[in-house]
């Protein structure tokens, strides 16, 4: 089993790594061979949307899920505190020799179309009345944190937005890893996605975590 990065952040400001984060790590470990073969002789632009503490992006760099000389890493988050935390976590785990930049953005809004080869997304998936508005100032830390959790109707408001953009985000060979909880009704989501996309969607991992059932699906053309 590959080592998990050491993380030390202020969890009043950024999402604390939990079962969902660790499930993604296990998925990426499982997918290492596949990813290496797919991006065997070329650059892979790896992008995590919603990097939070940076545990997932750091795990990818630290364990060379795709080797250093074949990957650049972009970590995107809407929460300014998360971007600093992501940089700190990478540093804390001696990833300075990997290419990492962090960008403050709402999902993929600032990313050029069809440039991402590996997308990792652990969305705000908790069903809620709605999706919170962006806080007005950087100091409203708890409100930034809410954005990492609350996913509106069925917890799918944000994931739906991303799925609609997936064709624009991923490169031709791109692969996306997206996490769901059972209340998102992932089987139905996948079925609906496949009605409009002639893609391959695969269940990589499913795990009971406390009273939640979490799963990660991969999406490829």
């Amino acid at each position: 089993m590959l080592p998990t990065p050491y993380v030390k952040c202020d969890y009043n400001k950024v999402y604390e790594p939990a079962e969902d984060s660790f499930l993604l790590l296990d998925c990426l470990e499982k997918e290492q061979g596949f990813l290496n073969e797919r991006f065997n002789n070329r650059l892979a632009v790896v992008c995590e949307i919603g990097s939070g503490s940076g545990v997932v992006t750091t795990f990818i760099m630290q364990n060379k899920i795709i080797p250093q000389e074949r990957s650049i890493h972009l970590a995107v988050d809407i929460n300014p505190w998360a971007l600093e935390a992501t940089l700190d976590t990478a540093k804390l785990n001696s990833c300075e020799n990997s290419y990492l930049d962090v960008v403050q953005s709402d999902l993929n809004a600032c990313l050029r179309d069809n440039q991402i080869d590996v997308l990792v997304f652990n969305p705000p998936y908790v069903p809620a009345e709605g999706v919170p508005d962006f806080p007005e100032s950087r100091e409203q830390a708890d409100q930034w944190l809410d954005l990492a959790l609350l996913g509106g109707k069925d917890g799918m408001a944000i994931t739906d937005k991303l799925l609609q953009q997936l064709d624009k985000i991923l490169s031709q060979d791109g692969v996306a890893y997206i996490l769901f909880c059972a209340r998102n009704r992932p089987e139905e989501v996948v079925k609906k996605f496949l009605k409009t996309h002639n893609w391959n969607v695969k269940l990589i991992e499913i795990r009971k975590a406390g009273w939640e059932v979490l799963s990660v699906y991969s999406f490829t053309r």
Partner: protein
Amino acid sequence: MKFLTTNFLKCPIKACDTSNDNFPLQFDGGKCQLVQDESIEFNPEFLLNIIDRVDWDALLKVAGELGNVNLPPKKPTFPCTVPQLTDVGMAVLNDLHIMLLQTSITEGEMKCRNCGHIYYIKNGIPNLLLPPHLV
């Protein structure tokens, strides 16, 4: 933000997607602070993979705005593998390494060539989040 990252960012305003001017963002050289960070070591294989991928015209534009006018106007071609590289080729790759991977913009401004909206880089982190009235 490392120089190379400018090759992947566009203006987040939806209306600009239909223009060809939302990428690359235009840098205000006078307001940009650049630093050299040597933590990424030179690896010719990495550079070959990167060159293969980059949009050279966009790179040229941004380099010019940041005061580097020494880039070849066309994307240089290299042999496919590192052992086939000449000394000259290796030197060119090393220069590109210094520019693309070791040069960071720590403070500065970048503007959409289409809508003119300005985005800021502070403490090395670009902020491309839009104010609510522009979403």
